[in-house]
């Protein structure tokens, strides 16, 4: 979520510097993904609000309250400053015909003048990447980003009769504000009048009752919808909006009146002639007050640190939790917005993150547990070591395939099936590595894979190994039949140690290879008996230049008629281009010349 620093400062004038704030948030609340300085001197944070705090933190006020409590700094409550416009009796009718709507507050405002929003509103919206549309729509958006409650405004004159919240009928249609025509299902909740669908509840408004430049009278909506329904509908219709994001994460219905008050004040400020009617509040079942009990001892036991009652009392005070402390048990009244606080464990998290996880010091527990050997793992290790010792190298190929017996429902790739064998992947691997033989410095590819395959009968672990000519594949159980029984009877530690013969791996580093083609060349040299291969190696090596990535490697030597023949292989490759035969030929010619200068003979 985008959060403006200047906007936050309305509520927390003593906020620390943006950099300090970002560090504090990362350690105590949520990851700050970016901090962006804007040309107008504002700073905008992108904060990855965690799903359990999406109820109360997807807003500037929510963030400001949290920061004020976390840092124990002043929070300026804006509510007393809101203008309360004079209210008049209303004829607005609201009917909720679905259990998925928990609350619906509506308010008619007449005689509004739609036009550009004041500059400060435009600036605030722009700072968090929102486009200004008109004063009414901007007021609704501003209030949402300020307090977290999604809001909608309808053109009253386009609404036939009262507001009805109901389930759609199958195949009912709506044209949304962005002029997309959508077909609805009975599981979708909508806002309708006596004739038309006006909006997809909590997700997107419709074209029919859109507020435009001619609008004079409006209905304001601050409602609360059931999160699963909103999520499912938005998923099926593939719509992502800020309203959806908030509703699908579950909001408290207690938020609606705050938003209505703020919104009314904003509109009263923008349109001084506006006539406000009474708020109609349909709230079938009030959100229950919740208490949460916990003990300092239990919190300390979960966290593994000693926490004092005093520390906890201090936190409860900062976070404005009303509480009772009796017989070493704290019982707090949870604020309606904090839907995340239900269990003692939730309080453990709350206290730990506020105190800071750096309070926790590491300890390796000593538990009374006797580990047993894992048969599957032991068999895999045995099979791997056996194949390695026989000269096979290990590969891991993809579990996905073009064809198979088990299919995935949806895939980001074009391979929709799971492999039924390892051999196909191994064949590809052999082909690839065979082409790279000179680079690998081997003369034959021998590979194996130990992995899972999936057939109609279920999954099974197999072992496959082979070379260019032949691949054998069998189940891990079959493969490990040849192991002696005692190979699997070793206690855990020792079998592991045999699987990791040394710990020297830690020091080696990886060298990425070039993605350009290579060129391999052999050179064979006749030298008088007594000349060592190292002498020939040296001459070649000194003249190869920088393009050699492998070699010279001696691969053949023999004696004939008092002479000795040494054959070396060189592999050329560049990290940034494709080499040409011509340039490699030049290097080889140079080497040949140098060898001739020594009085040796190139075959």
């Amino acid at each position: 979520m985008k959060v403006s620093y200047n906007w936050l400062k309305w509520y927390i004038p003593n906020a620390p510097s943006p950099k300090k704030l970002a560090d504090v948030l990362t350690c105590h609340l949520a990851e700050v993904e970016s901090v962006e300085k804007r040309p107008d001197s504002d700073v905008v944070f992108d904060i990855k609000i965690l799903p359990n705090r999406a109820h109360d933190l997807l807003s500037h006020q929510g963030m400001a309250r949290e920061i004020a409590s976390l840092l124990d700094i002043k929070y300026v409550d804006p509510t007393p400053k809101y203008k309360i416009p004079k209210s008049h009796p209303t004829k607005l009718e609201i009917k909720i015909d679905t259990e998925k709507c928990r609350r619906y507050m509506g308010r008619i405002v007449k005689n509004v003048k739609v036009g550009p929003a004041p500059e400060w509103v435009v600036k605030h919206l722009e700072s968090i990447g929102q486009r200004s549309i008109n004063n009414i729509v901007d007021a609704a958006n501003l209030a949402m980003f300020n307090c977290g409650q999604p809001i909608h405004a309808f053109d009253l004159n386009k609404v036939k009769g009262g507001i009805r919240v109901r389930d759609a009928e199958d195949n009912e249609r709506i044209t949304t504000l962005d002029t997309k025509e959508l077909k609805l299902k009975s599981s979708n909740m909508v806002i309708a009048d006596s004739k038309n669908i006006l909006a997809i509840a909590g997700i997107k408004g419709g074209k029919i009752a859109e507020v435009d430049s001619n609008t004079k009278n409006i209905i304001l909506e601050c409602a609360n919808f059931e999160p699963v329904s909103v999520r499912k509908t938005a998923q099926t219709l593939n719509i992502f909006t800020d309203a959806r994001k908030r509703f699908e994460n579950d909001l408290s219905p207690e938020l609606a009146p705050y938003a209505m008050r703020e919104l009314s004040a904003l509109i009263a400020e923008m349109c001084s002639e506006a006539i406000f009617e009474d708020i109609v509040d349909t709230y079938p079942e009030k959100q229950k007050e919740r208490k949460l009990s916990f003990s300092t001892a239990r919190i300390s036991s979960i966290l593994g640190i000693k926490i004092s009652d005093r520390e906890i009392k201090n936190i409860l005070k900062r976070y404005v939790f009303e509480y009772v402390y009796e017989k070493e048990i704290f019982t707090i009244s949870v604020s309606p917005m904090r839907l995340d606080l239900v269990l003692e464990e939730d309080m453990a998290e709350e206290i730990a993150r506020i105190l800071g996880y750096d309070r926790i010091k590491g300890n390796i527990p000593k538990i009374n547990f006797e580990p047993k050997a894992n048969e599957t793992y032991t068999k895999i290790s045995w099979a791997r070591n056996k194949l390695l010792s026989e000269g096979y190298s290990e590969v891991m190929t993809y579990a996905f395939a073009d064809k198979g017996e088990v299919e995935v429902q949806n895939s980001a790739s074009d391979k929709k099936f799971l492999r039924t064998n390892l051999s196909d992947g191994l064949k590809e691997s052999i082909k690839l590595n065979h082409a790279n033989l000179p680079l690998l410095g081997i003369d034959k590819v021998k590979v194996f894979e130990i992995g899972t395959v999936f057939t109609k009968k279920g999954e099974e672990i197999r072992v496959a190994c082979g070379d260019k000519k032949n691949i054998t594949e069998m189940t891990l159980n079959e493969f490990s039949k040849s192991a002696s029984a005692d190979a699997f009877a070793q206690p855990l530690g020792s079998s592991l140690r045999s699987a990791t013969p040394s710990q020297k791996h830690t020091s080696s580093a990886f060298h990425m290879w070039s993605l350009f083609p290579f060129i391999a060349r052999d050179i064979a040299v006749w030298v008088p008996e007594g000349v060592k291969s190292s002498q020939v190696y040296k001459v070649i090596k000194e003249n190869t230049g920088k393009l050699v990535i492998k070699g010279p490697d001696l691969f053949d030597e023999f004696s004939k008629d008092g002479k000795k023949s040494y054959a070396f292989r060189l592999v050329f490759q560049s990290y940034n281009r494709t080499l040409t035969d011509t340039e490699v030929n030049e290097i080889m010619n140079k080497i040949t010349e140098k060898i001739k200068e020594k009085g040796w003979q190139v075959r």
Partner: protein
Amino acid sequence: MKQKNNRNPSVASGKEHPLSILANQAYQAFADMGFEIATGPELESDWYNFYVLNFPKDHPALDMQDTFWIKEPPRLSGTPPKIGGEGNPPRLDKEGVGGGSVLRTHTTTVTTRAIEKAGKEGRLPAAFISVGKVFRNEATDITHEMQFFQIDGAIVGENISLADLKGVLTHFYKKMLGSDVEIEFRPSFFPFTEPSIEVFAKFKGKWLEMMGAGMLHPNVIRNIGLDPKKVQGFAFGGGLDRIAMIKWGIPDVRLFYQGDLRLNQIQ
């Protein structure tokens, strides 16, 4: 100087895949602390992959792990594919949820199954560690793969705490990345842990996100047949590929699954 005549080798040893080397090192680090190795199925019931772990149905939390759901074969052609490994029968349709199967999105499935079994056998407290392949349905790039390896562990006992988690993970990352490594916890959210934390390791002067962890949520403890009033524990899980990339400087996660032997450089 050079190995003579390597066109005629007596059997030279093959080269091990870097992830196997690392998995064994990881297992060793945990064996030092008394963990038992656990293994389990890659094709998993949605019960074990999600619902036993306190993922609510139709909750945004499910978006955190893009999942490969398995298309069931037509019912008329006989029995559906067997889900679950030997000795661990599937528990579909428990409490009215589930029935689908997925490619596991994490190996927390394995440690959870192992603790459930240990509980039934009266083997508590217990500590399990598991390295296994997991799957995510997402577009691939240098840091994302549809398949990768996860290392996952858990301890359940009477007084297991976040401090124990920190001790265990500190030992582990020191073994993996060197003794000068520090670790840090930051706030996070997972349905199956409360408190939930993100583990960061300081390697070569930089803080890197390594894995998710936390104290097992009481609902999870209950779902595996244990009493959260009597036992508590922690669980952690993160990518093994990522540790390998950091440790050895391997630039692209996709290199692990190409079958290209140039990858097998780690001796």
